[in-house]
C-alpha cells in the first residue's frame, strides 16, 4: 500500500508528481499492493487529471496552505488506506509537512531521494548530504516517508481506466493563520526543471544589469537564477535563489555570471553537468568548480556571449 502525494498549482499536476508516481508504483510492485493518491487543495485542484493516474484518489479542500493542514491531510489519507509508504515530490513545502507526517506515522523519513528500491523488506534509497558533496545510501524499515528529488525519475503514464474519488475527512489542527501572501510573478521556465540555468551574482552590479542575465536565459531557453546576496539586495525575487537556502538545481548547463562561488551557493548547483563561469576576479572560487570560464567584465563578456550564441543559432 503506497500513498502518493500529488502536488499541483491549482490547475495542473506539477511534473514532480509524475516522478513521484513512478517511484510509488515501483515501490508498490516490490512491496505488493496498490497505489492511491492524495490531492490536497487550497481551493481548486486538477481532479480529472489526477484520476487518470491512480485507482483511488483522496481529496480535501483545506484553504490556504499550512504545513499542519497538509500534514494532517496526508496522515488521514495514509490512515484510510493503511499505507506502508508515502511518496511525495520534493519541494520546500513538502520538506516541511513531511517531517510532521513522518513523526505522526512513526515512519522513517528519506528526503530528496535520487533513486529508491526495496531490499529485504526495507526501503533503500540514495540521496545527497554534506551540502550536496556526498552521496549516501540509506535504509529505512517500514513505514517510510520518501520524497523524490526533481528531475531524477521518468514521468508516469496514465492508467487505462480512470480512478474514483474518495473525499477525505481531515481533522482540524492547531496551525498558523496566513495573514498575507507575497506572490511573485512567474515567468519563463521553472528553475528546478530547467535544462539550462543562467545565474547572476553580486558581480552583475545592479538590478538593471540582470536584463543581460534574462536575455541570455531567454536565448538559451533556460531559467534565471540568483545568488543569496542578489536576493538580499532586492535585485531579484527569492524564488530565483540557488543555494543552500534557496533552490537546488542540476541542469546540463549552469552559467554563473558575476558569481564568486561561496560554499552555500555551490551546494545548490554543484551537481550540474557542465558549469560555466564569468568573473573578473581570476581568484574567484567559482573557477575551481567550473568546466569553462572567462576571466573578464560581465558587462563586456555577456553581451559578446549573447552575440556569439545568436551567431551559432543562425
Amino acid at each position: 500500500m503506497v500513498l502518493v502525494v500529488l502536488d499541483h498549482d491549482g490547475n495542473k499536476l506539477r511534473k514532480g508528481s509524475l516522478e513521484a508516481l513512478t517511484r510509488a508504483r515501483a515501490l508498490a510492485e516490490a512491496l505488493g499492493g496498490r497505489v492511491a493518491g492524495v490531492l490536497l487543495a487550497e481551493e481548486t485542484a486538477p481532479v480529472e487529471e489526477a484520476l487518470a493516474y491512480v485507482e483511488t484518489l483522496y481529496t480535501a479542500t483545506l484553504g490556504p496552505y499550512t504545513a499542519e493542514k497538509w500534514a494532517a491531510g496526508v496522515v488521514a489519507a495514509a490512515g484510510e488506506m493503511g499505507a506502508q509508504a508515502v511518496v511525495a515530490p520534493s519541494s520546500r513545502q513538502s520538506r516541511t509537512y513531511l517531517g510532521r507526517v513522518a513523526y505522526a506515522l512513526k515512519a522513517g523519513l528519506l528526503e530528496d531521494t535520487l533513486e529508491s528500491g526495496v531490499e529485504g523488506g526495507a526501503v533503500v534509497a540514495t540521496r545527497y548530504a554534506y551540502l550536496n558533496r556526498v552521496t549516501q545510501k540509506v535504509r529505512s524499515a517500514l513505514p517510510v516517508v520518501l520524497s523524490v528529488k526533481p528531475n531524477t525519475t521518468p514521468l508516469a503514464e496514465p492508467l487505462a481506466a480512470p480512478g474514483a474519488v474518495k473525499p477525505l475527512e481531515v481533522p482540524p489542527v492547531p496551525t498558523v493563520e496566513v495573514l498575507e501572501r507575497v506572490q511573485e510573478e512567474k515567468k519563463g521556465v521553472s528553475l528546478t526543471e530547467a535544462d539550462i540555468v543562467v545565474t547572476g551574482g553580486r558581480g552583475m552590479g545592479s538590478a538593471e544589469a540582470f536584463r543581460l542575465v534574462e536575455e541570455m536565459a531567454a536565448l538559451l531557453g533556460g531559467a534565471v537564477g540568483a545568488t543569496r546576496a542578489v536576493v538580499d539586495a532586492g535585485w531579484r525575487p527569492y524564488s530565483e535563489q540557488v543555494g543552500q537556502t534557496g533552490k537546488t538545481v542540476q541542469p546540463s548547463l549552469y552559467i554563473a555570471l558575476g558569481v564568486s562561488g561561496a560554499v552555500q551557493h555551490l551546494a545548490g548547483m554543484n551537481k550540474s553537468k557542465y558549469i560555466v563561469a564569468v568573473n573578473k576576479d581570476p581568484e574567484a572560487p567559482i573557477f575551481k568548480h567550473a568546466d569553462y570560464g572567462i576571466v573578464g567584465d560581465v558587462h563586456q563578456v555577456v553581451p559578446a556571449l549573447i552575440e556569439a550564441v545568436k551567431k551559432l543559432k543562425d
Partner: protein
Amino acid sequence: MKFVAVIRQVPDGESKLKIQGNRVDLSGATLILDQMDEYAVEEALRLREKHGGEAIVVGFGPERTEEAIRTALAMGADRGIHVVYEGFADPVAVAEALAGVIREEAPTLVLTGGQQADWDSQALGAALAEALGVPVVSWTTALELEGETAKAKHDLDEGAEWVRVRLPAVFTTQQGLNEPRYPTLPGIMKAKKKEIKKVAFSGAPKVEILEESIQEKTRLQKVLDGKDPVAAAEELVRLLHEEAKVL
C-alpha cells in the same frame, strides 16, 4: 519567558571530507556550530534581550557537540542541555528525543536551523513541532512577539507569506533573519562556567546509513582570458557547442 535554540555541530562547508570504510570520516574536518543554527541562537538572544527571561541552547550529538554548545553560551545563551548520542540518528528520532527535554522547559518558543549542513535535512523543526503538538513556521526571515502570539514572515516555494501563530511554536531559521554575533573574549570566559546538563539519548533511529561516497565531479577548469571579450565569447560558445555539446 524561555527561548530555546536547538543546535547541532557540523563540518565547516569548506572542510575537506574523506571516506573511511564506506563512511564520511570527519577526523580531519573543522567542526562548527551549524551556521543555520547560529541564526536560531542569535534570535533567542535578541528575544531575551527584548522581552526578558532565559535563552537556552539544546544540542544534539556526540560528546564533541559540547564545543558547539559552548560557542552558543559564549554568544550569550544562559545555559545548555546536551542530548548525547555517538551514532547517526535521523531527524525524526532526534525530534522525539528532544521533545521530552524541551517539553520539561515549557518554552515560549523554539528555534532551529532550516537545513542541516551535514545531512542536508530540513525535517528537524517540523518533526519537533509535530512531537510537541505545535505549529511550525519554516524558513523564517522576520519574527515579532505579540503577547501570546507571534507574527512571522517566512519563505515558500514561490514567494513568501506573513503568518500569525499562537505560542508555543517552532520556527526554523535562515540567513536574513538576523546577523549572528561573534562570541567575545569575556563571553568565552563566562561560557566556561555556564551549566550544561547532559542527557542520554533515548530513541530508536528508523533510518540507517549504509554507505557514503564522495563524487565531486572533476571539473575541466578551462579558463579563457576575457581581455578580448568577443574572441573569448566566441571560443567559449564553440567549446560548449563542439566539446561539451550542451549548446
